[in-house]
């Protein structure tokens, strides 16, 4: 594989070539106490030094003296809201003549810089869900096709990260156009697609020292991970634990608030509702993020199937870690740790698996 090098001072060259391919460039920014992806304005630079401290139910940003732009590990969201917006109009109906029309959306070509390996693994799962059937989701597809992805290898893990144990990180292996490895003074770059390669061709090659440094820091990110899921397929453990007391113990803490499913980069459940004009002349059908932690999610023919929190947590957990194998050929967990950090009461999925496993 060809590896290129771009000094930090020359990063604008990469931005310039990306601007030829993308109308919008999204980069990480510190906003309201978290790293979020937001549009890069012309002339604006990515802010250096931000890193975060994460723990169960805890996320705080701190500004360091480091020149690095990607010292942080994860933010509350990454690609999910970009390819699958929290709320979107699907179609409209006019009462006059009863006519239906889809709601068109213009999707600008978007380059996103700073995507992590776990986010790429999650994106490939969302692709399977939204595009893998006989009836691909057209709204998802147009947004997905508009993406140019610049990934970043993690040089650091947060305390909540466990992508090593799920096999999804910390370095990007698939699903990107360009991947960066950030060093103090610049970036080692590699391409993951033909269009990525074409953009990198003009850059100079990375030297041995730069390549060794970039490899070492991935090892450092690996060694920083303290949480893990067991290496084995969890289906048999979970299937024999369906009647375990553990679910009630979790329900005593769980708020059924749905924060975990909202931040999970692979959770895709949604609800649909119609919003009619007050005069009743037309109505728009909306799709919005829902959660298996709501009553309405399991409301069928007058009955809420999962009326208790214990059964809702069990549903999320068994679907994510066991039933996804049947549906999508792998577990639905990519080890990003967001459900741990963003749970208001700090419920830790890795700890709950360990508890079921008798540890």
């Amino acid at each position, binding site marked *: 594989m060809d590896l290129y090098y771009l000094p930090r001072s020359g990063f604008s060259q990469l931005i310039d070539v990306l601007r030829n391919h993308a109308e919008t460039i999204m980069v990480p920014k510190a906003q309201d106490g978290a790293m979020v992806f937001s549009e890069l304005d012309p002339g604006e630079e990515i802010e250096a030094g931000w890193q975060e401290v994460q723990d169960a139910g805890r996320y705080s940003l701190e500004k360091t003296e480091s020149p690095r732009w990607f010292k942080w590990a994860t933010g509350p969201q990454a690609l999910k809201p970009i390819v699958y917006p929290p709320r979107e109009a699907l179609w409209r109906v006019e009462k006059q003549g009863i006519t239906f029309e889809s709601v068109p959306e213009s999707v600008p070509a978007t380059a996103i810089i700073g995507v992590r390996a776990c986010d790429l693994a999650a994106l490939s799962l969302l692709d399977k869900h939204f595009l893998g059937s006989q009836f691909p989701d057209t709204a998802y597809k147009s947004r997905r096709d508009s993406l140019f992805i610049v990934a970043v290898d993690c040089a650091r893990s947060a305390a909540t990260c466990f992508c090593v144990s799920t096999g999804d990180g910390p370095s990007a292996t698939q699903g990107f156009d360009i991947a960066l490895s950030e060093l103090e003074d610049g970036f080692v770059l590699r391409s993951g697609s033909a269009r990525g390669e074409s953009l990198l061709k003009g850059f100079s090659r990375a030297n041995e020292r730069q390549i060794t440094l970039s490899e070492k820091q991935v090892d450092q990110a690996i060694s920083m991970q303290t949480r893990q899921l067991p290496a084995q397929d969890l289906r048999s453990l979970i299937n024999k634990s369906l009647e375990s007391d553990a679910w009630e113990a979790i329900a005593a803490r769980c708020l059924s608030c749905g924060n975990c499913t909202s931040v999970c980069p692979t959770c895709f459940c949604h609800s649909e509702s119609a919003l009619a004009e007050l005069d009743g002349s037309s109505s728009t059908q909306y799709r919005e993020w829902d959660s298996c932690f709501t*009553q309405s999610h399991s409301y069928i023919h007058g009955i809420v199937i999962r009326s208790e929190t214990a059964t809702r947590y069990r549903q999320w957990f068994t679907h994510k870690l066991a039933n996804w194998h049947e549906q999508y050929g792998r577990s639905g967990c990519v080890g990003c740790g967001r459900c741990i950090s963003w749970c208001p009461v700090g419920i830790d999925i890795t700890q709950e698996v360990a508890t079921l496993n008798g540890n």
Partner: protein
Amino acid sequence: MMKPRLAVHKFTSCDGCQLAILNMGEELLTLADLVDIVHFAEAGPVEPEAQVDIAIVEGSVSTPDELERIKRVRENSNCLITIGACATTGGIQALRNHQDSSQWVSDIYPQAQFIQSLNTSTAIREHVRVDFELWGCPVNSRQVKAMLRSLLFGVSPIDEKSSLCLECKRQQNPCVVVTKQEPCMGPLTRTGCGALCPHFGKACFACYGPSETVNSHSLVKRYQGFGVSKEDMIRRFNHIQNNAAAYKESVINIARNFDE
């Protein structure tokens, strides 16, 4: 076809929820085309005893007169909808339910004999059958329009009762509990407001009332860890929606178990 007839009745309240109707702008004219607004004192028409298809009730029952009046409203309407915290749970004024409020009256007013007031402020549901309740303090125009449109279509309005967190996350507000250790009531509060307070970095104060699942024990324990005092925690439940069953129960549990 005759247009459906609509009345808006006021009980003990601040009138703020009626503004959700008055502030609809141009759509208020649309509404006036769709229904006959026969009684809505704050907007003009006054015919409190009129027979109507839809009665919207704002405010709680807190006077002897209101005890009788709500019965007549019920008799005169096909469908009775409550709007706002006062009508659905008794409102902030239900705080007096736990006190000797007649003593307050004589302490405050020089001629207390002119004040006709019950010792309690209670929800409309405690007096008559209610067909649908719109939660919030105050309710907003979006809720009122969706409710009225559903009724005009002849379907049940949607009861928005999942946790505020879901709406807050849909707006992609970084969580104030996780980033700032703010004792936000969002996980125990129903959606409907559009996550207004967290959107501006403030903790939710539960003005929309309990969500469908209220695990206050777990959340209170968490906030105790942030250093929130027992009194502060009780106040967060004993607020606008203090008379809502799930919050009342939470207060009892905090009073009993906080120091464990």
